[in-house]
């Protein structure tokens, strides 16, 4: 008997997508002086809306507005009052959560069940968590009255547009900074809805400014002389460039960059649970996650059986319309990203790894890719070393725990790692040995504003979330100097 799912589409009308979106500077939505950019719905490859972008003069205006707001309003305000604004924003996100989820799915291509159940509630929670810190900074262990840094210039990626906006804005504001933030050019909409929420919350003008545009806008922003703090989430290549450009300026930087997370399966792991965790690790958000578990390391004795289980499970994933509530894997964010993924897959085939892909049907229009696995890969292959940022898993095997650790750590990245074993001591021992900023034992891709997140090595530095995430937005330099 054939069991079919009926389509269960969410209504796109809920998003109330406007024909045109404007940057948000000094408390008002105003035409930018850059060239307009169209934003595409990756699920259909059709135009979704048009966004007015900024030029250098607009960036000046935004930075000045942030400076004025910092000097005249925000740094004078009590932490308790600042916190109340953040609580308001958290509530505003929750109240408009369904709309935000649909906007995000239409603009980003990720499944509605993810935006609805993860991105949007997590964004609200992030504001709620940090709101509570605003009047408790003296308890962070950074002295009796930790000082904010000033104006933060922030650049965020397209993979979690609203959530990354929350990760950046909430701690910055809680610590007493003002911000100028630039969303990715392919996903500007949800943060501009957030701007409406911010405006409705009566946040003083200039405390949050949103400038739209491509990489050149981000580059101008982070290099702007009026910026005191830079926070960037994105590729390691761009992160390196930012660090280089800011050399000698003394500005505090937080970089949250790429990863090639190892997911390590021991022979005693609960295999069905491990399969679910691996699926989550590499296919959540179509694998477009900096901490994705894109390197699977399976203990040799179970590798064959385990890979079969994994393939069977992947065959059941529903790939397609992101707006369908039953969709597990949605659209890749852009054609350019799809091209980057397929180019790296070709390199994997050319280097001798075996490619297996789910036989699921793909929609005709839009940017889609079948969930895929490379087997017989070796650590030197590009697919085992480079971040793929797509629904493609590279599998390798190991024999001993030591070998697993050395293979997992053999990467310039160090953002995340997963360990699957029923033995508690081994899980904790592995967690200590792995050189990565986040370790998931018998789970993967867990996030919480109370738990700090960030990388080792070339995955960047600085943390987001938790007490150490707040430290990134405060002056922590307590060394006594004479000049």
């Amino acid at each position, binding site marked *: 008997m054939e069991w079919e799912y009926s389509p269960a589409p969410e209504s796109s009308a809920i998003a109330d997508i406007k024909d045109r979106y404007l940057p948000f500077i000094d408390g008002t939505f105003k035409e930018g002086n850059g060239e307009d950019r169209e934003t595409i719905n990756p699920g259909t490859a059709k135009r979704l809306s048009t966004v007015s972008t900024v030029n250098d003069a607009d960036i000046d205006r935004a930075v000045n507005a942030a400076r004025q707001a910092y000097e005249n309003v925000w740094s004078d305000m009590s932490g308790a009052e600042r916190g109340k604004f953040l609580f308001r924003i958290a509530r505003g996100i929750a109240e408009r959560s369904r709309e935000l989820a649909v906007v995000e799915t239409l603009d980003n291509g990720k499944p509605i069940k993810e935006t609805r159940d993860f991105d949007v509630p997590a964004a609200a929670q992030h504001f709620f968590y940090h709101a509570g810190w605003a009047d408790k900074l003296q308890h962070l262990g950074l002295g009796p009255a930790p000082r904010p840094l000033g104006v933060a210039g922030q650049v965020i990626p397209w993979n979690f547009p609203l959530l990354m906006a929350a990760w950046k804005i909430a701690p910055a504001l809680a610590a007493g900074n003002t911000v100028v933030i630039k969303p990715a050019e392919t996903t500007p909409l949800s943060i501009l809805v957030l701007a409406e929420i911010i405006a409705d919350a009566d946040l003083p003008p200039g405390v949050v400014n949103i400038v739209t545009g491509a990489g050149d806008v981000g580059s101008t922003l982070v290099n702007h002389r009026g910026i005191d703090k830079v926070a960037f989430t994105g590729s390691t290549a761009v992160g390196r460039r930012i*660090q280089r450009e800011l050399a000698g300026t003394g500005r505090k930087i937080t970089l949250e960059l790429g990863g090639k997370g190892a997911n390590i399966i021991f022979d005693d792991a609960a295999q069905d649970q491990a399969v679910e965790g691996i699926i989550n690790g590499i296919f959540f958000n179509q694998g477009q996650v900096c901490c994705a578990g894109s390197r699977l390391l399976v203990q040799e004795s179970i590798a064959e059986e385990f890979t079969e289980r994994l393939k069977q499970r992947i065959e059941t994933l529903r790939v397609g319309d992101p707006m369908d509530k039953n969709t597990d894997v949605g659209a890749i964010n852009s054609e350019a990203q799809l091209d980057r993924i397929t180019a790296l897959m070709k390199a994997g085939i050319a280097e001798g790894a075996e490619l297996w892909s789910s036989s699921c049907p793909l929609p005709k229009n839009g940017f889609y890719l079948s969930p895929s696995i490379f087997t017989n890969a070796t650590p030197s292959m590009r697919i085992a070393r480079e971040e793929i940022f797509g629904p493609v898993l590279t599998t390798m095997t190991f024999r001993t725990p030591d070998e697993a650790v050395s293979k997992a750590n053999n990467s310039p990245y160090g953002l995340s790692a997963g360990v699957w074993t029923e033995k508690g001591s081994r899980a904790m021992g592995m967690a200590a040995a792995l050189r990565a*900023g986040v*370790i998931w034992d018998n789970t993967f891709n867990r996030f*919480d504003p*109370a738990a700090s997140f*960030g990388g*080792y090595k070339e995955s960047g530095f600085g943390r987001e979330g938790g007490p*150490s995430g707040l430290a990134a937005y405060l002056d922590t330099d*307590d060394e006594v*100097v004479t000049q």
Partner: protein
Amino acid sequence: MSHLAVTKTYKLFIGGAFPRSESGRTYQARDDDGNFMANAALASRKDLRDAVVAARKGYAAWSKATAYNRGQVIYRLAEMLESRKAEFVELIMISTGASTKTATAEVNASIDRLVHYAGWTDKLAAVLGSSNPVSSPYFSYSTPEATGVVGILAPTGTPLLGLISVIAPVITGGNACVAVAAEHDPCVAITFAEVIATSDVPAGVINILTGKITELAPHLAGHADVNALDLTGADAELRTSLEQSASETVKRVYVPKGVPDFTAAPGIARLRAFLEIKTVWHPTGALSLSGGTAY
């Protein structure tokens, strides 16, 4: 009866041993009046690379040592320094022209600085880590870990206190280091290496090079197996170019915001600069075993 003094050959300190520079080069250390003091090894790029290899090995052992053990070892450094106090006072007086009082104060402060950090090793996790009350059935905690191999450019001025004030916070967190001593003061630095060599510090945890900072620093900043840099001893111009090189492998870089006053109480910025926060998630299961209805 007269005795012709046996002068010391100052060599490098790499992997717990005292090799000459592989380049065979030396330079003259001069005292405060410009008179010849000693020949010191003029370290080369190759020496620096050897030191990084040694530091990577040292890091493997040191980062696995217990915090208690690391504290004891750093305290042992203080003990050994105390026992050689007179020697350091004399050396500092010759090298810098300081008075007995000033030089003694510097050595005392150096000993106290080591004692201060010896007590830090087993408190870092409590101060910088956290138990995270996540809103899902997981036990989550965040804890500081060593960054890895740290390249240090030691400051000029107070040769012993400056060197110890930059090295101690780095090793306290479990890192290993390659320190380039202040060019002018190789003798104090290498004599301190003798203290290290007799203090149970595992080989390679602290490596000290003497020579030209402008020659060595670019290689340190560009070395792919160095995880972090402390640029205290570099001038503003050099700092910028080193920070640029450091970006190639996303190194953590500590740059003081002025000239550090090492006589003041140290804060924790230097400790924090060379630590990574790791967050671990562990499931607790759907059922809470801690409650129940019976009581």
